[in-house]
């Protein structure tokens, strides 16, 4: 008998709503209000909360699906998806082995990781100029 022949089913633990998703939803609403009034949003770390698959599904359903989806390939794949609630972004980081390393809800106009760093603009310009000269 091989190890994979032994049936192990642990999905049951994920079938429950812990109640944390509802609390997070209220926190998102509060950050969104802050963003609208001051221009400054915030970030919620989903990985540090006891969150089941059922909680995730519930929260995703409540927030809905938006129009923008960004894929980043840096130290493993990351996805930044705007939810159906404009200004609320669902960020999932994975490492080089494709294991989830972080999951955040960022309430902002544009997620920080998407914008190009000014220093990288300068080094990009330098590199481009060299190509033009050659």
């Amino acid at each position, binding site marked *: 008998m091989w190890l994979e022949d032994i049936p192990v089913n*642990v999905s049951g*633990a994920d079938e429950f709503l812990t109640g944390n998703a509802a609390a997070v939803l209220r926190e998102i609403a509060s950050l969104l209000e802050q963003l609208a009034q001051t221009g400054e949003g915030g970030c919620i770390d989903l*990985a540090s909360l006891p969150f089941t698959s059922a909680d995730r599904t519930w929260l995703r359903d409540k927030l809905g699906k938006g129009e923008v989806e960004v894929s980043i390939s840096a130290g493993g794949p990351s996805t930044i998806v705007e939810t159906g609630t404009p200004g609320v972004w669902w960020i999932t980081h994975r*490492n080089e082995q494709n294991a989830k*390393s972080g999951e955040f809800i*960022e309430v902002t106009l544009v997620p*920080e990781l998407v914008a190009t760093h000014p220093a990288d603009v*300068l080094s990009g310009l330098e590199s481009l100029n060299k190509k033009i000269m050659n």
Partner: protein
Amino acid sequence: MHDKEGMFIQRLASQGISRRAFLKYCATLASLMALPPTAGKAFAEALAKGSRPSVIWLSFQECTGCTESLTRSHAPTLENLIFDTISLDYHHTLQAAAGEAAEQARLDAMKKNWGKYLVIVDGSVPTKDGGMYSCIAGISNYDMLMETAKGAAAIVSIGTCAAFGGIPHANPNPTGAVAVSDIIKDKPIVNVSGCPPIPVVITGVLAQYLALGTLPELDNLGRPKAFFGETIHDRCYRRPFYDQGKFAKTFDDEGARNGWCLYELGCKGPVTYNACATTKWNEGTSFPIESGHGCLGCSEPNFWDAGSFYRPLSTPSRPIKIAELGLAAGAVVGVAIAIANRSKKAGAKAAHQIATVADLEKKP
């Protein structure tokens, strides 16, 4: 752009690590340390700009598992970025120098950075018979620690051996092994326990010191609260089964196959403070309970002497019958058992028990 930051980013780029990858790593690290997630950027900037403080790593009565945990963590190693942000002046497993040259490197680093360097210790310190049971270059661990700690800004005890004495300290403790904090009383000490400790916890403590110049907030055992603030049980994905009173009775029964709670198979999760259930191991793959084995409680003092790994916390020292408590009551039972656990753990220290194959096969 800040020169140091530019050089740091260039150095990362030469290793194939982009600025975004570094920012991503810092965001994850900051949130793991219970710093605001948006602090990741500030954290990254501080790490990139910071000077490279001298670090002296002393390995005493240990198995090198703690070093392995850190250096083998990821490949290519984002965790190892920490080695780009420190000047590791002495580590007898990693350094190229040997013999007198190695010891001279330690003395030179101490002299040059007196009062500012960070000392990392893994392994316990034997004190019996003049500390003769573990020596490096003819110097006992005790003497080396006393000498090196004098000029240190702070000490980080990595692993349960350095933090609490660990396995060398286990009954009957033939070498008189003690923890660093048993000897050094006049320096800030951070205990990063675990056998081995989780790599990101080691990195997190060092990163906070490097970036913010501060040590993390500690619990009553000197461990960073951000990582040791809750029990394995608090964050366990099998917790709902515990609350429902659904327990695996053996490692191959229906309950085990259904992924039910491993409490009755000896899981020490309810009394063990660590971050395994959230940070996990092997690049975030899983942690022991996810692999079907209970927590051993390796980040707690005296874990080796706390009874069999395969006996439920509630059984040995107090005759609490789980069935009598009515498992369906779930959370209420949890409180009662948690109280009993503490009493049991204290009692078990006195009566050292040896786990045998029979323990594994015995039904609770």
